[in-house]
């Protein structure tokens, strides 16, 4: 990019919009698998929350003909509450969406948010599978990696870009539906269809999140993403500004040079691409395929 911009946010939004067309692009299946996996040793997050019946729930047993039984996890903490919880609750696939893991966003929502905006976003787009607007897609969908200056640096840029549809203004940060970026409360807001990783910190992302596409905001964030094993199997798109110091450009150049051992410029795709606006340069790298394989 010829200047600092919210390009990474646009790319993430475009990719997310495309996934809205796919009926299978949601988290419900993986979410239920995670619930089933609670019976295994060391689940990554052992506590469930019910959308209506608040409190913490934990695994009790697997149900013989399918599903999981859970029990109150906070009973011991609340001395006044008696053992009415001994019956627990059953979770079967159709009800999995009523549950979510502690500290994580809900996987289903009550109403489809921003339909007008998404519908009018791309000229050549297909129809939106409207149920997707009430199902999260943060586990296998699009992941936005923020710049190394911190989450706010990326968020502030996205807040400044406004889209108008059906007489309603929504900014880019809202349309990305990243958990914690919405002005809505967690229960009434849009379900997250994009996940977010703060590149400032090197903490691993949780095991269950394996995005299909990673969109990286900035050159320095890209250098960090490329050394993280969690993203080994992902497609990666990076948008960076050329208006940075020579050192940074050289660091990125050296990394691309290093990658050229395993990747080559995808000429065919690149030439088939529509010409980008003046000032934007696009390159694509694809994995080299050994002639023996």
């Amino acid at each position: 990019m010829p200047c600092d911009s919210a390009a990474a946010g646009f790319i993430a939004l475009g990719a997310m919009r495309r996934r809205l067309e796919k009926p299978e692009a949601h988290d419900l299946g993986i979410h239920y698998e995670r619930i089933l996996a609670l019976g295994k040793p060391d689940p990554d997050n052992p506590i469930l929350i019910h959308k209506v019946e608040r409190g913490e729930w934990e695994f009790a047993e697997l149900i013989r003909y399918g599903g999981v039984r859970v029990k109150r996890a906070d009973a011991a903490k609340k001395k006044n509450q008696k053992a009415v919880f001994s019956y627990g609750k059953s979770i079967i696939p159709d009800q999995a969406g009523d549950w979510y893991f502690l500290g994580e966003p809900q996987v289903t929502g009550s109403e489809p948010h921003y339909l007008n905006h998404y519908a009018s976003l791309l000229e050549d787009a297909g129809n939106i599978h409207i149920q997707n607007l009430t199902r999260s897609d943060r586990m296998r969908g699009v992941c936005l990696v923020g710049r190394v200056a911190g989450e706010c640096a990326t968020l502030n840029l996205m807040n400044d870009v406004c889209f108008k549809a059906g007489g309603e203004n929504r900014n880019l940060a809202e349309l990305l539906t990243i958990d914690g970026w919405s002005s809505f409360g967690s229960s009434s807001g849009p379900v997250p269809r994009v996940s977010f990783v703060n590149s400032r910190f090197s903490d691993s992302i949780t095991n269950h999140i394996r995005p299909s596409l990673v969109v990286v905001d900035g050159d320095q964030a890209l250098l960090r993403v490329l050394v993280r094993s969690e993203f080994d199997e992902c497609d990666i798109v990076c948008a960076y500004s050329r208006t940075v110091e020579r050192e940074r450009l050289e660091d990125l150049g050296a990394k691309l040079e290093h990658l050229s051992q395993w990747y080559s410029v995808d000429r065919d795709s690149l030439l088939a691409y529509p010409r980008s606006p003046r000032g934007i340069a696009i390159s694509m790298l694809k994995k080299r395929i050994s002639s023996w394989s």
Partner: protein
Amino acid sequence: MVMTTSQMFESLGKNQAFLIHRHEISLAAFSVLRRNLRKLIMQLRGTDDIESIDLSERLQSTLSEWLTAPISFDELFLQSVQILGETSRVEARWGQDTRLLIEEAQAVAWSLFTSENPLRECLKGVISDLHERQRSFRISCHRNSLVHFISLDQPGLGGSLGNHVFIHSLNDYKQSDPFDALIKVGPLRSRGWGAVPDAFLSAPKFPVLIQVLWPGCMDEAGVGFDPVISLNEREGIESSGIAWSTEVISKVVGPPMGTDALPMEDELQIFREMGLALSSNTRNEKSLATRVQIDNDNCVFYHPHTGVPSFDPSPQAHQTIELRLPGETLKEGMYTIRTLFRQDVDLGDLKAEDGYFTRIWKAELNKVCKLDAQDVCEQLRNHGVNLVYLESAVEKWCAPPTTVIRSPQQIKHFKALIEVLGLNQSSDRNLGESGKEWWEHAWEEIRRSRGEAIQEGTLQQEIIRDQVLNILSEMLYEIRIHVAESDEFAVEIPPERGLKVTVYFNKIYSVEQGFRIPDGMFEKILERHRTEQWLS
């Protein structure tokens, strides 16, 4: 106010072509001068004598400035050549060849003295033309060279050389609105003298770049670098839609000097290669560093990923005092913060605070120089201070101490200075039982002010630094008053806070990456001309 992305694309869309007008000005006498200085620099650099190398670095700095700024052929210009000193002494020290080079250089400099530099003439013409055609323009130059550009201003230019016209850094460029032309004196280079942001070529906010330069000064290959564009170019794919074409306009000024065939060399490239060759031998012993310039002459190196205590005076700053990363969050216009632990020196009956010795020797030096500066220089020479640019050095040493103590760089020269001033023999000063001489106490004070002496243990320093930064956050009113008055100032932590610390604030002139320096040079105040050798 930074322009928006939409404005940037509008500007790029509007400019159908991108042109470089390259005005090459030839002046035979100046070419001879360049050649001689270049040879001198190479000869002196080849020695292992500290003063010769220092002299070589100064000359390199001078010549680099001549090639990248519209200098006047004035007294300062003449003095730059005369720092080589009297030719008789030069021959005794460096031999006849060097003397002949210097004599010719000085003669040529005299012949140019007071004549108008044709490069300045050309530049005035360019600016005047843009002004008449009501074209908006910017000038790219190093902050140190600003004075040469400001001196161009005259009624014909309509006072068009205000501060807003100058771009000194990438940050300035990012803040700038689109304009019609960018003016640059000298070649386009990625680092060191004449360095420009790559974005000038890869993300232009202007359709025309006007270069005014001496012959032989070539643009560095690869300026305007962008890794993606470069990747595509190797595959023969044009990608960003920004292509520059160049038109060269050559102008020969003045009579030939029998040197028409004088091959013009690219000194800036030679210096760069010389620096690289020197540093490649010791590359493994050097670390990446970011250079922060704190005034016209001095700079400090920091590790690129180490937080530098700093103050941001801008009203928009969320956190005014904090640790910032050089090049990332530490920027021009902010202030570096250096702490100096005040140490009392035991002088028997009295305890002297920091600065005590400096105040005395500076006052004495000023007094004797007012009486007869030449005599002071002569005495210093007799005491072994054989700097060929001694007169100008003494003038600098006379400057009052601010956040930096201007003094001799070498310990033996400082000792000689104190001896000449008669302060070592001063009987009315009881130096206590430390066993140190007067000059040693004074030298220790200088070293500490330059950040050379170890003040405390690292951990203890960090704890105290954090304490100091907290206290400074409560002193913002006082700090802002200083900021309004000066680019450098000192603040003392109130004694009741239990710390004997003086805090030095220095405005940041520039932040430059791309250096590799020996480990011992970090966070010390260094003369800028000495540091060019460490460009990586």
